């Protein structure tokens, strides 16, 4: 049962990431693209968790954790760049 659920969920996430790619390429504004990227990172986290269940291992947990932390940092940096040009001032 879980296997099937995982397959469905993985398919959803994969599809979601393709949609994100579409949004990313489409834009049209820079914030749109940043948003798409941010979403893609979150979907990637979902993927990692699903894969962890699938592979029966917690070994990838830190990867997800780090991605959560670090995806945020890039997003903030990109937006800060749009707002100010200078990300550290």
């Amino acid at each position: 049962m879980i296997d099937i659920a995982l397959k469905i969920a993985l398919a959803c996430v994969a599809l979601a990431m393709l949609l994100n790619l579409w949004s990313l390429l489409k834009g049209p504004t820079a914030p749109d693209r940043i948003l798409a990227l941010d979403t893609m990172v979150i979907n990637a986290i979902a993927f990692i968790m699903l894969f962890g269940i699938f592979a029966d291992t917690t070994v990838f947990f830190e990867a997800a954790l780090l991605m959560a932390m670090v995806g945020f940092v890039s997003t903030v940096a990109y937006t800060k760049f749009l707002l100010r040009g200078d990300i550290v001032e």
Partner: protein
Amino acid sequence: MSMEFLIATAIGALTWAGIYLSLRGRTFPVVLGVTMLSYAINLFLFAIGRLKVGAPPIFSEDAATYTDPLPQALVLTAIVISFGMSALVVVLSLRTFLETGTDQVDGEPDPAIDPLDGDREEWIARRNAHRIDMLGETRP
């Protein structure tokens, strides 16, 4: 399609783009190219340990199979080194641009748009005429 095929083509594509970009005439694409190349090379080094799914190199007695840990260690070292190098290149190209007013690296004189020569108003006008939209947005 096999995983190996996907990885090999990905490496090939990254290398291609990396080489192409690093052969452009200005520092920024060159830096991009170098970055692409280091992605390619990290994947490549990793791949030479052969691919395995779900067999991370964390030792346990009952592990039936494990992936080759050595290439991973090598990639880690390579990532760190290439990070240091990229940081240096980025800063160096910025620094060079600031010092010389040009970021051309193709050995040809640059039709420089340099704030240090000429009238400031004129410079601003020229710069605006030449500026391109780095965000890829169409301006209203």
